[in-house]
């Protein structure tokens, strides 16, 4: 493997494959390196794939991609121990072209997507770990792999090596992540007949539902549980920041059992046959932890760049857009033959001008605010539940009195000013 490529992409996930696809389609000589047996075999996500960003790469991809169900309803559950307050949006327009988002199973989807990049002319090499970037005179000129004579050279190396990104760390682009900058998430795929899924979630064959759960799903810790419908299975999972797991001595698989057995969730998963158990980290440091994105001969994309909007569970879409922008940057640089940091820097400015940079900025304080102020998940979610219970339980108490009682309860812990401050702080963190 001593030949030289225009572009080496490390990692065949959404970011890497989008980059390889776009570059190969535009005539670049691209090598895509994947450490797994096949693309997808190491990759995990809850399961929501957004339409817009992939459509910009492969128009009408849903006609051939292995998607599970288009999501027509997004539910949000605020759980207490034996109750929940819910809100949701269901729109049938999401069930028709061009759709909004889909559930997918990544091992199937990523494999299909990487094959599309290969169709465009990218060379895909599986079962190969990139052990380090080859740096000459401060410039990345290629990669060293764990294959014999495994050095390969290119004008540019795009790092799409996922949340751990040992390669960007090796280059000094970021320090080791802190436990509060990553979320440890575990999930199970449960097989259920499509008919059962349709009945339980009140949908038809080609309609899916996503459920995000807060509060008791994570014992009131910063994090979420989720339930997504595939064609003939459902994904049930839960995650919190690694720091919360450590602080509260939680065993992830026990937290998952807690979710599966929660009285509000159990009826949805009952009788499901476990097919797979998966653990993965999600980069949730947000705007303030985005590493150095560009160097001489190198660009960082996707999870490796911490491009995740945890509040809106968006990640794979940001990965795809960043991969595409990286490819376009390399194509431009090729015209001038200048692959220096200065030349590639338009990647960074384009990222920050796009929805990626803007959305990360919008929520830059959100994770920190909710981590530092545990009362939102720990206290206010149970309070919401109690308030609804009080208001809707008919016991002869006049409604005005009930309202007063609820307000008193809401402000009992922190006082009226404390309550107002909490509300303002939460609004400020997401405004």
């Amino acid at each position, binding site marked *: 493997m001593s030949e030289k490529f225009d572009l080496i992409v490390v990692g065949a996930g959404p970011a890497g494959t989008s980059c390889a696809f776009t570059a190969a389609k535009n005539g670049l000589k691209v090598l895509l390196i994947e450490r797994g047996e096949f693309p997808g*075999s190491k990759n995990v996500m809850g399961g929501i794939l957004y339409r817009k960003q992939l459509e910009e790469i492969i128009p009408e991809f849903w006609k051939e991609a292995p998607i599970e169900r288009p999501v027509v309803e997004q539910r949000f559950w605020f759980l207490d121990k034996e109750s929940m307050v819910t809100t949701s949006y269901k729109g049938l327009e999401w069930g028709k072209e061009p759709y909004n988002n889909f559930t997918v199973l990544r091992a199937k989807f990523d494999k299909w997507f990487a094959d599309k990049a290969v169709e465009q002319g990218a060379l895909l090499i599986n079962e190969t770990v990139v052990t380090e970037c080859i740096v000459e005179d401060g410039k990345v000129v290629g990669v060293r792999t764990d294959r014999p004579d495994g050095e390969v050279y290119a004008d540019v190396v795009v790092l799409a090596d996922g949340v751990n990104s040992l390669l960007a760390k090796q280059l000094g682009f970021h320090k*080791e992540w802190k436990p509060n900058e990553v979320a440890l998430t575990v999930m199970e795929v449960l097989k259920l007949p499509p008919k059962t899924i349709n009945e339980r979630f009140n949908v038809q064959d080609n309609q899916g539902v996503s459920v995000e759960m807060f509060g008791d799903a994570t014992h009131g810790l910063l994090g979420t549980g989720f339930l997504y419908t595939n064609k003939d299975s459902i994904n049930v999972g839960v995650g919190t920041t690694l720091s919360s797991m450590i602080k509260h001595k939680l*065993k992830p698989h026990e937290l998952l059992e807690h979710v599966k057995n929660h009285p509000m969730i159990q009826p949805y998963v009952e009788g499901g046959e476990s097919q797979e158990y998966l653990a993965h980290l999600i980069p949730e440091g947000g705007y303030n932890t985005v590493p150095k994105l560009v160097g001489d001969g190198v660009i960082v994309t996707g999870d490796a760049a911490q491009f995740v909007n945890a509040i809106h569970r968006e990640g794979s879409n940001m990965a795809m857009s960043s991969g595409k922008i990286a490819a376009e940057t390399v194509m431009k640089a090729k015209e001038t033959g200048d692959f220096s940091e200065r030349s590639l820097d338009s990647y960074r400015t384009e990222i920050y001008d796009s929805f990626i940079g803007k959305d990360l900025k919008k929520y830059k304080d959100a994770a920190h605010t909710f981590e530092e102020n545990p009362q939102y998940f720990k206290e206010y979610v149970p309070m919401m539940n109690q308030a609804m219970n009080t208001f809707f339980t008919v016991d002869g108490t006049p409604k005005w009195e009930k309202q007063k009682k609820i307000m008193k309860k809401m402000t009992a812990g922190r006082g009226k000013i404390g309550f107002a401050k909490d509300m303002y702080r939460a609004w400020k963190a997401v405004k």
Partner: protein
Amino acid sequence: MAKTLEDKQYLLRFNCDQKSHLEVLDHQVCATSCPDKDCTIFCPADVYKWEGDRMFVGYEGCHECGSCRIGCPHQNIKWEYPKGGHGIVFRLA
């Protein structure tokens, strides 16, 4: 439905390497400076087990998530990816 971690791990396919990709750098640190041994709790696959005097590393069941590397309070875990094509093989999600 899988209840225990053993049930869950049994669902998975691993193409194990002969050599561990995880290494405790200094076993003395686990023994003397780390009373909580958090890795034995938060690892989603129970890879780390304290055996009274030594940390046992069952790398064969590792999900390669990276939590132990980040979460070890003493940065005492050398963490690499398994050799290409080895380690966990997810078939679905």
